[in-house]
Each structure stands twice: as C-alpha cells, then as structure tokens.
C-alpha cells in the first residue's frame, strides 16, 4: 500500500488519522505513551539515531540505486513492477519519470558516478558495521528491541527476500551470520502465526528458504 497523503510507505491508519514514514510514526506512537527506546540513556539514544542514519544513508540509497540505476535490473524487474497497476503507455511514462527523479537525486548526493561494485562495497561496509554493533546480542541495545531493530529488520528482510537478477546484494548480507540470525529471530517472534492464509504461508516458506 502507498499512503494517500505523502505517497510514502510505511504508514499507519489510526482512527481517522494517517501517519506515514518511520520518523513521524515513531513520534505519533510516542505521543500516545509508547516508546521502544524509553529504556535507553541519552548517549545510547544518540547512538541509536546515528545508526538509523547510517542505515538510511547506505542501505536505502543502495536499494534505490540497484532498483533504478542498474540498467539490467531496471529493464527486467523495476519497470514492469512499478508500472504494473497502470495501462500502457502510463506505465512506461511513470516509471521513466521515477527513474529520472531517482537518478537526479543520486547525482546530487554524489552516487551518480558510482559503479555497482562500489555500491556493493558500501553495502558490505554498512553490514559489517551493523554486524559489529550487534555482536552476539539478541537486539542492538541488548535485551529489548528498539526502533533501530525495526528499521534494520525491514531493510535486511527486504534485501534477503526480494528476488533480483543476481544474488550479489543478498549475498553481502548473508556473509554476516549474526545479521541473518537476527532477521530470522524477529520474523519468528513477531510475524509467524499471524497469517493463516495458505498462500501467504507458501510465500513465507519460499522466503525462508531464500534466507538460508
């Protein structure tokens, strides 16, 4: 789903309010009295925010790069997928426009000149940092999950379970066993048992096999 308000995911629908994107959702939930990071001290909160920016900076940008700047992926996966809800020629027009927008943004932040290898190198560096920070703990700030865990899970799970032309991106993540174990653990704890629909279960088994 895409939020009708800003056009961005994720979003939550509470009563007659729609709140989209991670930052505003976290603040909204906090205003209602729930916060995952209440148990952290000031220095840990600063660290958490820094790691969230690292994930946004590296992983999100790398995902966008792969989807929109790698010609092979763009042609075979992204254009068909992005344009699928629309009839021809709208599907091609909208996806070319999106591609142009993303490439402009990449150029503005200095990723325009990067090759795929350099992007994968950056992803590897980011995963290494996350892996070192996680260590042998169950969550990034030891026993309790925080917003950082949610963000990292969201990105890593997507990378691990989305099928692309090559497996290079997901291989980078799989190099770090504590990260894959982290994803599996969260999936089992929070997402299993909620869906009884058999087709979803089949999809999940397919995804699980990709995780291994």
């Amino acid at each position, binding site marked *: 789903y895409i939020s009708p*308000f*800003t*056009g*961005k995911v994720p979003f939550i629908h509470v009563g007659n309010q729609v709140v989209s994107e991670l930052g505003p959702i976290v603040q909204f939930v906090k205003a209602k009295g729930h916060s995952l990071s209440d148990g952290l001290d*000031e*220095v840990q*909160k*600063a*660290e958490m*925010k*820094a*790691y969230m*920016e*690292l994930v*946004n*900076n*590296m992983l999100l940008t790398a995902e966008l790069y792969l989807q929109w700047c790698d010609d092979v992926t763009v042609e075979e996966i992204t254009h068909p997928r992005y344009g699928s809800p629309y009839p021809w020629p709208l599907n091609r027009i909208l996806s070319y426009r999106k591609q142009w927008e993303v490439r*402009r*943004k990449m150029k*503005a*932040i200095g990723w325009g000149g990067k090759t795929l290898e350099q992007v994968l190198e950056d992803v590897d*560096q*980011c995963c*290494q*940092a*996350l892996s*070192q*920070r996680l*260590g042998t703990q169950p969550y990034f700030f030891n026993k309790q999950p925080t917003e950082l865990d949610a963000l990292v899970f969201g990105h890593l799970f997507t990378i691990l379970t989305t099928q692309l032309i090559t497996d290079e991106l997901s291989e980078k993540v799989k190099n770090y066993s504590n990260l894959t174990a982290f994803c599996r653990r969260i999936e089992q704890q929070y997402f299993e048992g909620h869906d009884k629909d058999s087709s979803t279960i089949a999809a999940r088994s397919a995804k699980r096999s990709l995780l291994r």
Partner: protein
Amino acid sequence: DIPVLIAEDNVISQPAKILNFLRKQKYNADYELSAKQGADTLAYIALLEEKLLPALLHTFWIDAENYCSVTKPWFASRIAFPLNLYLPGKMSREALNRILLTKGGPPLYSLTEVEAQIYRDAKECLNLLSKRLGTSQFFFGDTPTTLDAFVFGFLAPIYKVCFPRVQLQKHLKQLPNLCRFCDDILTCYFRLSVSGHSPAGQDRADANLQKLTQLVNKESNLIEKMDDNLRKSPQHPPSKLTTLKLAAGGEEGSPLNRLSP
C-alpha cells in the same frame, strides 16, 4: 574540489579517498579503536552528513544574506579569474539542488518549510553530538580519531565564521563541551592560522579582559595601601594622591576605555 591532499605527484580529493591513501602509507588514526568503535564512527559520520550537512550548506550557500556578504566574496577571492565569476554560483546552485532533492519531498512543499526542517534536524544533531561527547576530550577517549576530524570539520566553520544570520552558531554556543572541543583542536593543531578575522579579535578581547582584571586587582591593592598611608600620615598633600590616581588610570589605559562608554 576541497579538501585536497597533494603528496609528491599525487593530487587526491574527497575525504574517503584521502583517508584510503593515508592508510596505505601506514597512517591510521583509528588503529586503537575496537571493531564496535569503528562501526560507531561510520554511524556518526552518516548522522553528520544526513542531519548537519544540509543546514551547513544552507548557511553558507543558500541563505542570501550570508552568501552575498561572506561566502561569495571569500571563495571568489581565492579562486583564479575567470572561474571566480562562475564557480561560487555553481556551488550555490548545487547546494540548493541537493537540499531540495534529498529533503524537499512531500509533506514539505515550500523552501521555507524545508529550511525550518533542516535547521531543526541540525540543532538536534548538535545536541546528540554534545551528549555523546560528554566530558571527554575527544570522542573516543584521549586521542583524536577520524570521527573527531569529521566532527571538527563540520563544527569549526559553524563556530568560527562570522555570518550575518547565525542561528546555528548561536545554538552551538549553548553547547559548551562542543565549543571546548573546537577550541582545543584549534589551539593544538592550528596555532598558525590566526589572522585578521574577528575570531582573532575575540581572542584579543579575552586577553584584554584578563589584563584588565589583573590591573583592577593591582589598583585595588594600591588603593588599600593609599588608604593605610592616609590613615597613618594625614599631612600627605592631595596632589600626590591625584598623581597616583592618574597613573593608575594610565596603566589601565586602552582596554578600560574600550569597554566603558
């Protein structure tokens, strides 16, 4: 393109490449860091680039008053003709482009809203850095590392350059540990670069204040002594008293005159 490293025949720009080059030459400020501290370094650098850099770019290149009165003349004076006519404008446009593309999506539609958001983010980032630094001298203990260099690189321009519109600088000055961090690095590593601008004037004013305090103390000692003398020998002619006072006034001289209206 700055920063630039010129070593023998090599000219290298961009921080990441410079760091790689130095590491190959066996210079590494992060040698003593643990793996987790290395990871923290990457995370905090990402925080700086995402949250502080847009506001920094805005203060330097997009705010019209700042750009026209300080940044453009300053850069143009250091670039050769005819590039000085073209390059500052190009850098300004690139900065605006970057901010609008990365921060300008919905629900922020106007430049004013984007500006408000990026300054909010920058102030929060400064607060986070201050909390992380605490009372330590550097971010990872007693010796400087790559992170210290990055943070200094971002903070020093905000701290020291005198712009007409200075909301970031005002916020930074409310965080004394960050100011102390910048001052420490400036005195240890940049002793030679004090020149001309009002930052040097600020130092001079501080030194004057110190001298003044010493002189005032001396004067109060003198007054006490004079008082004692007066009590002991009442026939001291008043002219001598006046001379003494005038002498004290002359010693204080220019700093006091400058401060009193």
